[in-house]
């Protein structure tokens, strides 16, 4: 397991499994949890952190199944069609909708290495809970 620590609570932990990969994600609020999930997802996809603020995207995703799964699959879509790598989010989650914007860079083979293809974020064993002010989610990815 690979751990990334920020103070006491890690941003995310990679769940390692024979066929697929998952993430256990933490956040002090839903917004932070969503941003940490995006960071975890792209940590699995690419190597290299020189993400330049090249492009801005407006985000409005409504809940259709699970909001976190919808949000991450939207980021996978932008990655697959444009090579977009998110860097800075400014998002608000209200009424089961994520709204806001994200600034990010575009994939450049000179600055990044692709680690693996993530086909999708699945609903298998999905969970999102809150305990003592900490939000925790679990997602399984299809690779």
């Amino acid at each position, binding site marked *: *397991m*690979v751990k990334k620590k920020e103070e006491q609570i890690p941003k995310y932990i*990679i769940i*390692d*499994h*024979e*066929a*697929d*990969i998952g993430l256990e994600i933490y956040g002090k609020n839903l917004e932070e949890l969503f941003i940490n999930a995006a960071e975890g997802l792209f940590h699995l*996809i690419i190597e290299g952190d020189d993400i330049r603020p090249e492009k801005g995207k407006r985000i409005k995703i409504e809940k*259709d*199944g699970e909001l976190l799964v*919808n949000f991450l*699959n939207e980021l996978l*879509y932008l*990655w*697959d*069609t444009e*090579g977009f790598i998110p860097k800075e989010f400014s998002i608000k989650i209200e009424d089961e909708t994520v709204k806001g914007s994200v600034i990010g860079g575009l*994939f450049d083979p000179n600055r990044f*290495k*692709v*680690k*693996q*293809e993530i*086909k*999708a974020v*699945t*609903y*298998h*064993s*999905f969970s999102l809970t809150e305990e003592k002010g900490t939000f925790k989610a679990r997602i*399984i990815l*299809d*690779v």
Partner: protein
Amino acid sequence: MEDKEIHLKKLDDNRYIVKRHGNMNVDGIIYLNEELLHVLGTDESIKQVENVACLPGIVGASMAMPDIHWGYGFPIGGVAAFDMEMGVVSPGGVGYDINCGVRLLRSDLRFEEIREKVKELIGNLYINIPSGVGSHRKDLKLTRDELKKVLKKGARWAVEHGFGDQQDLEYIEDNGQIIGADPDCVSDKAYERGKDQLGTVGSGNHFVEIGYIKEVYDPDTADRFGIFKDQITVMIHTGSRGLGYQICDDFIREMLKASEKYGINLPDRQLCCAPIDSPEGKRYLFAMASAANYAFANRQLITHWVRETLERTLKVGSKKLGLSIVYDVCHNIAKIERHKVVEKGKIKEIEVCVHRKGATRAYPPESEVLPDRYRKTGQPVLIPGDMGRASYIMCGTKKAMEETFGSTCHGAGRVMSRNQAIKASKGRSISKEMEDKGIYVRAASKSTLVEEMPDAYKDVSKVVQVVHNAGISRLVAKIIPLGCIKG
């Protein structure tokens, strides 16, 4: 684990049964021997076989092949058939990579003739066929209208545009075109993802591999398949790329709502589904067929570039090369097929929707859907192994029709997680190890190479032995890899 110990019982040397209990509508049958059961360890896949057995309208048994491993919702290696009136269709029972499949090309070349050229061939295949994450083709960007034609016509579209010839279509499951595809059921996002990924291999376990026939087990059948010892073969393993992933994601959202609407109790949300006959079920099948056709066209285009690369590199004409398709099989698909089922003690032949998620169709001799050449032998079944050991050519059997809705295994199945593989490869050069074995690998990403190293997989030879011994397919020949390109 507890469930597994309580309910899993040995049926014979090659099969285990999970007796119907709890909410299961049918038994679970898993094709496994003791050795492979041991490899399965604490894997949750047995529980997933049970979960599938709980879905409405399932007929026969919830089955899994010996390459079974933990999936999401359905297990990988799973086979489940559903009654057309009472049953359901589930996008999770097909998977994200719709019509991921394998195509095998045979040649008139012998290993000796190209021994010194393998490295160059692999290098040129790597240049001519885009592979890797998000691989795109700069020379083939399709308009929406053209893409719609691909989704409707499948491999036929490719042949009509000069990629291959008419005869190729005969040797593809469903002739490379699933009838009933409706491109209007495909979302804008799926089109966007699909527009420049046609003709690309993708990443992960997908590949184009040059190999040779090391051993022939059944000379008569091999002869009908056009296979002989020391013959050079090319295997292509890829699917419907981002277009398929998007369609699956789109419909899982829709099916989550549909499951609620139709009051279907889901043991796992990834099993979400809708009645086959419902508007949601039909739309999924129309969209899935569209993605399946995209995948057939994808493998057809890659076949064209494989032919071109071999002709140019070896400086021989297409006739001398003789690169023709042995067969092309889907291993992630749902299909409407006719099968015999036992109902109230009587055998009846009915139409069912067979889900094969990491399983291959294995039709027997005399099947009407097979080309004349294979009517006497049964369908060629193609089982790829890992990049370092072997792949197998098998043949469909009558017993598969009787026991498994005409299905068998699809590959090796992982034993190591990706991180375990990375750890196990520390201080090693996988590409050097492969080269020492005489296998040249070009991979777009170094991590793919590590994650895909042979030790990360079960030995495919043990998997095919189980289906052979169980009689649901027969061994015909063994292929040894010489080199491959990977994502």
